[in-house]
């Protein structure tokens, strides 16, 4: 903040009187679209999209709402994929128990990595998380239960609660959609809670938060573990959707991809990472069949995004006249 200052004019754009109901209708329309989408689009593609959207949302919880840039989220995503795949395939666990193990495993990993990294700031934090996730990558490369380069193949989807056959694609889709929505609700509640309020204040002015008696690193660690657990939820889902877990999921490129998705969509908004993930996954999907190298295209898209809309697609929309008229507020 500048030293001397005159009162800054408050928002000049008036919020439309019906903004609340319009937003509600938009939200419900999106929800409805997700429910009927498998009638029109390839379900596996949609499930992949939802899993990555959840992963990006989990990442955004840390970057957008806590201000921490982790470069090691692949460890949680891929680690959970291994844990879930192993539990379901080798121990014959039910899918819900397998996913729960993935979440708990990712949270435990997050606690260890976070405890080491959390006292560092900015680029140092990013580098430490990268280094730790690379260590985990090499662990996965060597550990016998991951089957090295082969990965864990043909993971059975099993029956949800012993009742619903997840080998049926539609059942599986609605299961993934349900988990995705629960994940989003958890994030939304987390952000809009007393804890979330303290996180916000830490992001706004860390020194002040300390001087008010908040043990800042503990709050950050809490957010880190929650983000890791939710990334694990996405990873566990992914293992069941594709029925395999491989080294790709724990590689550093995966950490980079989730950063790309989140920045592309817009950090600090609930919708941003979902849109970003949708865009990246769709691009990958459609370019996979063409001769165009995917990484170059996504790289170009990323550059355009950084140069033209720094807030990300959703962030720019929220900050635009129309967005503000509808009462959207980007956090950053």
């Amino acid at each position: 903040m500048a030293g001397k200052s005159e009162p800054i004019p408050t928002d000049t754009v008036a919020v439309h009187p019906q903004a609340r109901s319009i937003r509600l209708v938009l939200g419900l329309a999106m929800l409805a679209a997700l429910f009927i989408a498998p009638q029109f689009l390839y379900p596996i593609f949609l499930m992949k999209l939802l899993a990555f959207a959840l992963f990006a949302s989990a990442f955004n919880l840390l970057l957008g709402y806590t201000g921490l840039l982790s470069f090691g989220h692949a460890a949680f995503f891929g680690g959970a994929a291994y844990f879930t795949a192993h539990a379901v395939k080798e121990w014959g666990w039910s899918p819900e128990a397998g996913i729960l193990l993935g979440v708990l495993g990712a949270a435990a990993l997050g606690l260890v990595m976070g405890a080491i990294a959390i006292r560092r700031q900015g680029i140092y934090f990013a580098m430490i998380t990268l280094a730790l996730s690379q260590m985990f990558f090499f662990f996965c490369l060597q550990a016998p239960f991951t089957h090295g380069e082969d990965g864990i193949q043909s993971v059975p989807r099993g029956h949800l609660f012993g009742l619903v056959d997840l080998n049926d694609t539609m059942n599986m889709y609605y299961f993934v959609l349900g988990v995705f929505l629960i994940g989003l609700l958890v994030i939304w509640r987390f952000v809009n809670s007393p804890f979330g309020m303290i996180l916000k204040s830490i992001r706004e002015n860390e020194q002040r938060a300390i001087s008010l008696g908040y043990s800042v690193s503990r709050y950050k660690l809490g957010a880190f573990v929650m983000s890791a657990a939710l990334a694990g939820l996405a990873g566990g889902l992914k293992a069941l959707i594709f029925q395999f877990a491989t080294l790709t999921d724990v590689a550093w490129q995966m950490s980079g991809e989730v950063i790309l998705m989140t920045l592309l969509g817009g950090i600090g908004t609930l919708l941003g990472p979902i849109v970003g993930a949708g865009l990246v996954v769709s691009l990958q999907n459609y370019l996979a069949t063409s001769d165009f190298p995917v990484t170059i295209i996504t790289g170009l898209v990323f550059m355009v995004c950084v140069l033209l809309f720094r807030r990300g697609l959703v962030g720019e929309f929220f900050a635009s006249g129309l967005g503000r008229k509808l009462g959207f507020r980007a956090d950053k």
Partner: protein
Amino acid sequence: MAGPAATAEPRVVLSARGLGKDFAGFTAVNGVDLDVHHARIHALIGPNGAGKTTVFNLLTKFLQPTRGQITLLGQDITRTPPDKVARMGLVRSFQISAVFPHLSVRENVKVALQRPAGLATQFWLPLSSLDRLDARADELIEQLGLARWRDHRAADLSYGRKRVLEIATTLALEPEVLLLDEPMAGMGQEDVQMVAEIIRNVATERAVLMVEHNLNVVADICDHVTVLQRGEIIARGDYATVSNDPRVRTAYMGSEA
């Protein structure tokens, strides 16, 4: 040099002995002894670069002292982390106004109220669970004359009001000792009067230690003055004593003292 203040003073709540800090060979603060009394306003003055803010950072543990000892309410806090010191009752403000810019005035105060109310770690409760802090927050906001701006974002306040908001936020913690780093810096005359009045009121129930450049204010409201130069104390006493001290006059080159 006169020893720490006279006998009829209320209890000492914060004290430092032989406090020193070196930065890579450069001694920023050296041999500082300081006693802060309950219900008194203490000023720490001195020319630019005298080490006033460093002393503040040492006392609040935002910096770790190289030498010396600090005692808060009878407990040694020389090695205590800053957030713990704040929880023990020593709360500071900053030279650059420290508010949460994108939170409303009320939310700023409520963030401070959350921890003492035990409502800071619940990630499963809705934000409405914080509504029960509204009454206390509004009371503080009213008391400091910010009621009109209650729902404005802190970033939209004038500079002076940001400082007042910072004091309101600090008071929400009901601290035993309040450290104010240049509370009037960059303020207009009316704001200075207003803030001086607030500080005077606040100090009836707690100790205040402030760094301040505005010597008129110091003369007006401070009971004790400590003068710092090149990291060392060169004079202390009430304002009249200090302002007549030849070393202080030299330090300020006769400008205002």
